[in-house]
């Protein structure tokens, strides 16, 4: 949460209990990838559906049943894939699920069927319409360069639309009042401050840094790369004037625990230290 600027992807989602869950919007890349996955899955399903219909009706010799089933099946697949999956509790198509995304209502309340239909009906004209138009033209052998450019331009406007607004909204999201957020499971990371502090630090040594640097140190400790540990340890030792004891990880863990405890205490007393530049303001 540190340094949330205007371009942060974090958004408020306040529960009825009054706690802001702080959801994070899905990135454009992840959403595009999810969409491609869904298209692939739809094509695959269409192929399987065709094969299944062909297999089931192989005896009856009736072209009529095959055609009806296929027409209706293709219609339901094309229009229903996104809608039916997003209506589920997970609020996500298989593609979105694979990339850890889900659709939620922007106002945080329950997602209605009409919202999902609205956001996915618009998908039709964003992508499918220019595409079918082009295929139709190509099929009629009068594909026209200008027409192709117009179709591509049309699609580009809507495909790039999410990049031109703060909330990464597709045109369909705008109409439906939805947005796409990240939905990930995360294991509880180990407790870095749990180990009893073996080293003692002076107040002056602990006053060097604020919460921002504490979080940076946490990240260094969690990645655990020896080179980064060494740089961090030598920097802190240099500033605090401490001798090198050849145990970077142990030193940093102890320093982290001590700094964390001290900063938390200050925070509870209403004198939190945001970063090292704030030392002078104390």
């Amino acid at each position, binding site marked *: *949460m540190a340094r949330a600027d205007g371009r942060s992807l974090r958004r408020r*989602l306040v*529960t*009825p*209990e009054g*706690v802001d*869950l*702080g959801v994070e919007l899905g990135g454009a890349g992840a959403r595009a990838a999810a969409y491609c996955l869904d298209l692939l899955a739809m094509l695959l399903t269409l192929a399987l559906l065709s094969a299944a219909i062909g297999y089931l009706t192989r005896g009856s010799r009736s072209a*009529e*049943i095959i*055609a*009806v089933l296929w*027409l209706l099946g293709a*219609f339901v697949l094309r229009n229903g894939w996104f809608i039916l999956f997003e209506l589920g*509790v*997970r*609020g996500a198509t298989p593609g979105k699920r694979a990339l850890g995304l889900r659709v*939620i209502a922007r106002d945080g*309340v*329950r*997602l*209605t*069927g*009409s*919202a999902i*239909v*609205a956001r996915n*009906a*618009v*998908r*039709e*004209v964003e992508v499918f*319409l220019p595409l079918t138009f082009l295929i139709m033209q190509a099929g009629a052998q009068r594909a026209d360069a200008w027409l192709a450019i117009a179709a591509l331009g049309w699609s580009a406007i*809507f495909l790039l639309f999410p990049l031109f607004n703060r909330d990464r909204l597709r*045109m369909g999201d*705008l*109409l*439906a*009042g939805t947005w796409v957020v990240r*939905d990930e*499971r*995360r*294991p*509880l*990371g*180990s*407790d*870095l*401050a*749990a180990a*009893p*502090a073996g080293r003692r630090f002076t107040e002056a040594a602990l006053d060097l840094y604020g*919460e921002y640097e504490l979080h940076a140190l946490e990240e260094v400790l*969690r990645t655990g790369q020896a080179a980064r540990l060494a740089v961090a340890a030598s920097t802190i030792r240099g500033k605090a004037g401490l001798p090198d004891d050849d145990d970077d990880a142990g030193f940093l863990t102890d320093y982290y*625990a001590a700094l*964390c*405890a001290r900063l*938390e*205490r200050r925070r*509870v007393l209403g004198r939190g230290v945001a970063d090292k530049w704030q030392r002078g303001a104390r």
Partner: protein
Amino acid sequence: MSARPASAAAAGSRFRAAHEADWARLDALLARAERHSVRALDDDELLALPLLYRVALSSLAAARATSLDRALIGYLEQLCTRAYFQLYGPAEPALAQLLRFFRHDWPAAVRAQWRETLAALALTVAGILAGYLLVRGEASWFYGLVPDGMAGGREPGASAATLRATLHPKGARDMLAVFAAFLFTHNAQIAIFSFALGIAFGVPTALLIAYNGLSLGAMIAVFAGRDVGVEFAQWLAIHGTTELFAVVLAGAAGFRIGAAFAFPGRQERADAALDAGRGGAVVVMGTVIMLAAAGLLEGIGRQTVDGGLARAAIGAVMLVAWLAYFYLPRGRDGAR
């Protein structure tokens, strides 16, 4: 807690020690509910879910205020978010939603866009008139207004007998179901388009509706020119009242979106778009149902009912039924 509040342990560590078991239990319940469904949980677990959610939520609130353990806060955030969606996410049961859609949502959404519906109707009528007058004045207009594939021999030069024959098909009954399915999927797709095209300020929607009227008007001109106009009207009416009504409604939903983008009025643009989008989506869902009915009437009803009067009567009954369903004031929400 010891006498000295400034004990060495960080707030995050104390939190973890006190509540980690609850969080892990919630995590496990959520994982099962997400993999299968909430029904995978037994009664005790279902009762425990909201309690554990509130434990996690208050842990999160407290951790944010007192702890600097980002791993802990991140974990609690995703845990609470997942629990929130499990608890508050699921809508009503599907059957209840369906009932509400037919009893209230659909007619209400149609009534809410009555202004746009009138505009779309006016545009359709204008298109029909223009198509009729154009083809009556200069027959070659027909080829510009009706796509080749749709004409099927029904063109300006055709004799009355040829035209009449297209209205009473013989022996083409084996592909009725395919015909109906094709008409339905094609028309439903067009309806979805004319709703969604509203995002371009409704201009493509207007073109689509006007074009629909124009080609119909051109067709009427051809039949009326050979004095088969009444029979054509009867042939058209059996499904046409439902189908045209559906197209007008879908177009009106598109207009509403376009209008919301262009002239949001007192609302913010995003709010106006949202109302138009969600209301329009309900109308379009209903339109697909109407078009399914029209497809059945056209593909099967028309091919089996050959009498002109019977066709016209079915069409009229359908129209009255739709109008009554949508616009007749009813019980509570009529008096609203």
